[in-house]
Structure formats: C-alpha cells, structure tokens
C-alpha cells in the first residue's frame, strides 16, 4: 500500500506541453507495473502566461482507493518528488500572484527529492533554493531548460530523461524497464528516446541537502483577507501616486504591494547607466511599469515588478545599454543604479563581465536562426544521449532531416 506523488514545476506557455508529457509518462510508466495513476494540471488563467511558474501533477498508487485518497485535494499538500524544469525556478514559485513566494522545495516531503535540469553546480543552485526544515535530496540531470512555445513542442528528449531519472529516484513505483516499455509504446516512442532515458538513469547526479543548507531568506508571504474584509463590488484601490526618488528629483511609482514578480522572469535587464541617453523609451515601453526614474534622469528597472519580457532591451537605441541576462547570474533583487552610484568602476567591470558571458546571455527560449533546433538537439544529445544516426525521432520522423 503506497503512493507516489510528483509535482512538475514549469514555466507557463514555454514548457506546458513538456510538463504535461512528463506527468502523463509517469502514469503510463507506472501502469507497466500494474499501478493506477492520474496526471493533471492545476487549472488557472495566469499560469498559462509566458514564463509564469505553473504546476502539473502525477499521482500513482497501488490501488484505486489509494489513488482517490490522494486525488481528493485540488493540489497535493506534499510531494515525494518535485520535478523542476528550469533551474531559475530554484528561486521559488509565485504561481497565482496572491500566495506570496513559495519555496521550490516547500511541498517536498522529508527525505524526498527535488529533481531538476541544470548545468549549474549543486552549491550554486543552493544559493537560490530556500532552506528547508527537513533534509531532502537534490538530483540533477545535466541539461539546460527545454523551452518552446504555445503550439510547438521541442523534441530534445527532456521528457524521457526525466522519466529515466525518476526510475532511479523512485524504483519501487517506476522500474527502468517499465519506463522504457512505456516510451516505446507511446505516441512519441523510439529506440533513441529509450536510450536517452537509460542514459539519464545512469548519469543522474544526486546530493543530500542538510537542513542547514540553502538560501536563508524568509520567503515573502501575506495573509489573504476574509470575505467581509474585502472591498465590495469587485473593486481594488488604485495604486497611489508615487514619490520623487530623493531630494525632489526622479520618480518612483507605488506598486502593487502583494504581487512581486521575483520568480516570474527567467531573464532580467542589465543597464549601462554610463551610455544611457535618457531617451525614455524603456520607461514608456515597459508593459509592467518597472522603470524608476533616477535623479540623474536615467532609468532603473525595479526587480519587484519586472517580468523579464525583454521589451526594454528591444527598444533601447543604444547598443549594449540594456542587455537581458539569465536569472542564474543574480542572487538578489537589488537596485543596479544604487550599485552603479556606489562604485562606477566596479559596476562597469561587473557589467562587462556579465553581458559578455555567453552562458548567461543566451536566450532560454525562442529560435534565432533557421536550423538552430537541429543544432541544439545534436549538442544536447552529444552531451547526454547517443549520436544521432537515425534522424530526428517522432511520429513524422521520415519527413525530417538533420
């Protein structure tokens, strides 16, 4: 009598098909050893927006009754395994805007596993992941986050790698043979994918995490109001008018005090205040009104509000004045302008280093040139899978060429 509860934390839109496939694959794999299961998404509108952290779940159990026992909740309160499809989610989840910040390991049970795709070191990741009162295991598949779009799916084997890894983490529920058999039978079945799952099983890296380890910050939270405390008429007070930054100069708008977007973004803008020509374009174009006007007329992107869309980078007329950089390069949400004001030389050095680092400036989603997908797929497989000899797997394999 036992059940395995898995959550799959993913980036809205970019990874929704991936997450659904993993949750589905878990159930179909467990079915191979006669277990019952269900795969479901937590429905909501906001999660299905670009990059917003969202969740799918898979539950497998020995009996139907046990399955129902665990399904009776909208969202499981505890999970045996937390699968994380993008390592910037290590900073936490603000999935529906109103819960505050949920540490990524919050639902993971004592002795459970956080299973992630990442190219970063364990120690680096533990700078982001919040401390937990119970020990657990951090397990890594060496791969970068697999991002695609609303209507497309990226066939880079991430889903089968996750299944292979899960067979290592929870062998009493998913046997590797069961996983391989399920992969072969399923709509996306191919021997190449089976090989990827086996490799992931072998190459999974794990590290126990003690209760003393992790980001010590207390995650942001707030109390939800009672029905009689809420304003009537589906109204909320407008955000009040802002204030000058200092000494009557500049302008800092007030912002929604409940909805911070700390974990919504995968990238953030890095600004070169020395080359800024104060043209206002970033300030006007930012969809989330992130830019605070500084006393000197430059603009500082406020990290409480930035969703990481990259519009400011696109509209800035000065080369390399705004550069989008992956969240993994940052440990906090501090003001860049203040850092620049404190020590302009040090800031410049940091800026040049950061925006010159290809690792953190490469886009996590979208394709920049024709053939990029095939190129990346080959690289990914070289790193973790087998040589491509049989063409790209999938239902329409015959029509695809490298």
């Amino acid at each position, binding site marked *: 009598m036992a059940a395995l509860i898995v959550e799959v934390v993913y980036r809205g839109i970019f990874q929704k098909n991936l997450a659904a496939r993993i949750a589905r694959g878990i159930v179909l794999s467990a079915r191979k050893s006669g277990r019952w299961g269900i795969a479901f998404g937590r429905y909501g509108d906001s999660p299905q927006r670009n990059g917003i952290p969202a969740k799918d779940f898979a539950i497998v159990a020995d009996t139907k009754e046990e399955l129902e026992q665990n399904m009776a909740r909208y969202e499981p309160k505890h999970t045996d395994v937390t699968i994380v499809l993008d390592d910037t989610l290590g900073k936490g989840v603000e999935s529906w805007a109103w819960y505050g910040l949920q540490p990524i390991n919050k639902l993971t049970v004592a002795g459970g596993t956080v299973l992630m795709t990442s190219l970063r070191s364990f120690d680096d990741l533990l700078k982001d992941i919040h401390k937990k009162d119970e020990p657990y295991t951090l397990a890594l598949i060496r791969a970068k986050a697999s991002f695609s779009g609303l209507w497309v799916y990226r066939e880079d084997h991430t889903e089968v790698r996750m299944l292979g890894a899960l067979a290592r983490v929870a062998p009493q529920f998913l046997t590797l043979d069961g996983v391989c058999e399920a992969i072969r039978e399923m709509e996306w079945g191919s021997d190449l994918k089976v090989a990827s799952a086996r490799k992931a099983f072998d190459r999974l890296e794990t590290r126990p995490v003690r209760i003393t380890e992790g980001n010590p910050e207390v995650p942001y939270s707030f109390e939800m109001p009672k029905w009689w405390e809420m304003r009537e008429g*589906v109204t909320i007070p407008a955000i009040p008018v802002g204030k000058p930054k200092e000494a009557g100069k500049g302008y800092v708008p007030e912002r929604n005090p409940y909805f911070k977007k700390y974990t919504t973004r995968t990238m953030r803008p890095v600004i070169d205040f020395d080359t800024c020509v104060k043209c206002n374009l970033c300030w006007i174009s930012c969809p989330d009104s992130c830019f605070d006007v500084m006393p000197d007329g430059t603009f500082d992107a406020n990290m409480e509000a930035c969703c990481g869309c990259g519009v400011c980078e696109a509209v800035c007329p000065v080369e390399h004045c705004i550069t989008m950089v992956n969240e993994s390069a940052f440990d906090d949400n501090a003001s860049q302008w203040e850092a620049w004001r404190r020590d302009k030389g040090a800031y410049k050095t940091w800026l040049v280093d950061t925006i010159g680092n290809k690792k953190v400036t490469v886009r996590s989603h979208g394709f920049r040139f024709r053939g990029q997908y095939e190129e990346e797929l080959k690289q990914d497989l070289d790193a973790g899978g087998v040589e491509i000899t049989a063409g790209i797997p999938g239902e329409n394999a015959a029509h695809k060429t490298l």
Partner: protein
Amino acid sequence: MAVTTAAPAASDEKELLISGSEAVAEALALADIDVVTAYPIRPYDTVMQAIAKKIANGQLVAEYIVAEGEHSQFEIVKHASTVGARVFCGSSGVGWAYAMECLVVTPPLRVPMLALVGNRALDDPGAFGVEHNDALFVRDLGWMLCWIDSSQEALDTTLIGYRVAEDRRVFLPLALSADGAFLTHSQALTLVPPREKVDRFLPRYDRGDLLLHPDNPITVAPQANEDWVIEIRRQNDEAMKRAYGVIEEAYADFRRVFGRGPENPWFEEYMTDDAEVILVGMGTISLPIKVGIRNMRARGKKVGLVRLRWFRPFPTERLVAALSGARAIGVIDRDYSFGSPFASGVVANEVRAAMYNAERRPPLLSFISGLGGREVTLEDVDKAADMCFAAAASGKSDTKTHWLGVRE
C-alpha cells in the same frame, strides 16, 4: 357583493390614465434619472417611447442613449452607474437574453440598476405575448426580481426599487417585471405623486467608496481566480440577505410619506383569511384569479390568492406562514422549467422547496397556464381550484403538473 368605487385622487396627487409602461416613465421622471439606454423590442419599447416623450417635453433631463443592441444597452448603464448616475434600462424576451453577459456581471459589481422586463415569450416561435421565463434567466445571479400587476404598482415599485437597490447595504440590480400586453399596453387610472414627496422618500444615489472618480481611484473588475471568487460570491449573498430588511424599511417609509402602499411588501393576499384553497401566481394573472375567486365564493367555495411580488429575495418565512394554514395549495406558473422536479413551473418548485421545513405541509398542486400570452380563463381558474379541493379531500399532493388551457 359590495360595489367598490374608485377613490378620488388625493389632493396632492394627479390622476392620469396611463399604461404600466407610462407609469414607469412617470416614476423615472420623478426619480430624476440621469442615464437611460434604449433598444427597441416589444413590449419594452413602450417604456422607451414614454421616456423619450418626457425628455422631449422637458419633464426630464437625462442622457437618452440609443444603443446598437441590448448587450451595449446594459453595458452603458452599468458603466454610467459606477460613476454615480441613476440609470434605467430594460428589455424583453430574447433581447434580455442577448444582454446576458452584462446582466451576469451587474450584481457582482454591485451596480444598483433598475431594469424593466416587459415579459415576453422567448423565440422560437417569434411571439409577443407574456411568459416569465425571460426575467427568470437571472434568478440565481444576484438580481432582485419583482413582479407587478397594475400601473399604480408599476409607478410605486419603480420608486421603491431605486430606494432599495441604491441602499448601500444592498447595491444590487432590480429587474421589475411587467406582463407584456396585459400591463405594458393597458391604460388604467393611476395616481402620480408630486416631486416634493418623492424627494422626501428617495435620497440621492451615493456610490460612496465604490464611486469611479479621479478623487477615488479604484480598479473595477480585475482578473481574480479561485482564491478570491468564493469570497466575492459570499459578499453578494450577504447583500441579498440584507435586502430583506431594506425592502421592509422602504415599504414602511413609502406608506409614511405617500399614505398608501401595501403592509406586506412581499405578496398580496386576497381573501386568504378563511381560504381552504390558496392559489399562488405572479403578475397580471391575478385579475382572472380574483374574479374567479369571487365567483367561487358565491358558490360557497373558500378560495384565496397569494400574488407574489418579490421573487428575489424570496419571502420564504412569510410565504410559508401564509400558505401552511390552507388545506391545499395550487401554484399557477406563467413559465416552464422542462425536466425540473415534477416537470413543474419555476414558482411551483420554489414554493415546494420553501415548504419543505414547514411544520404543516398542505398538498401542493402545480399548474402551467397562459403561456405566450394566452388568456387564463375563469374556467381555468375554476378547474385548478376544483383539483385543489380534491387534493385537500384526499390529503395527497399530486405529482403531475397540469397544463391549463392547452388544446388536447
């Protein structure tokens, strides 16, 4: 039988020969509404015309906006109300249905709009006559629903309606239902009070903290998911519950200021004191039933009528008290609810539900009649009462719903 003569108009009230629709327009002028929207559909168009005339004659200063359809019509007044305007709107039948999206959002936004539903059969077939299913669309959504049966009641209840809807404790929309043709197109002698009296009864609309204004910056209707929705519904529920007390207060005040109006806001009781059989209905069906009752009483049959005015909020306790003394109850619906319990009409099922916890539950019979504006005849009323007497004798409710006046 005593002959009743019409009381002459009280000194300060004017007596006019007007239809139910014109009576509503008189009340709107007295209430000094700010914004009215219009899109023609029979029988609602009669109100439109009457208001347009009032404005043209200089008796009312208001924005009169002809929209391109019912959907926009209700959207416009909804927005006008949030910026503090006293608004009026209305429709009939499928026109009301076409506005449904706006009708649905009006109660949660706590917009105290007053709408007149000139009750009309739903297409198909295209028909003009009365059925109550149109107004009943919104019965579960936080709209207050009230049925009237005379021009006088149309005028009075319009004034009372604004007073109730615009009370800060309520802030819910009210749909006033007037039977197409029977009320909207029949002219009757009606007392019209002077403006000073109305001003004493009806305070200005004050939207308070919900006013959309630069001095009170708020966002109305943001996106909210399951972590907020049930609280918003609960707020609506509370507003509807508070409406009970506010309605009682408003009628008491109406009587104080105007010296007339019913003691019981919720329903009219006609010869129920000693009645063995009580018939229940809404709207102008009251007329043939009352005449039928008088005829039956002449033959020694003690029948009475409860004419329901307020359907939402539903006067559960008072209705149970009024009905549980009878030997049998007969509910005559001018609506249908296909596939509902006992295939009854909407009112019959509501009355049944209300009676469930009553200590004494007389047999209850359900009738459907007068659909599409067909006449409810005195014979129909007789027949219904006779079946009720039979049920009273046997002590058993009849699980069949009887269609009166259908060709068979």
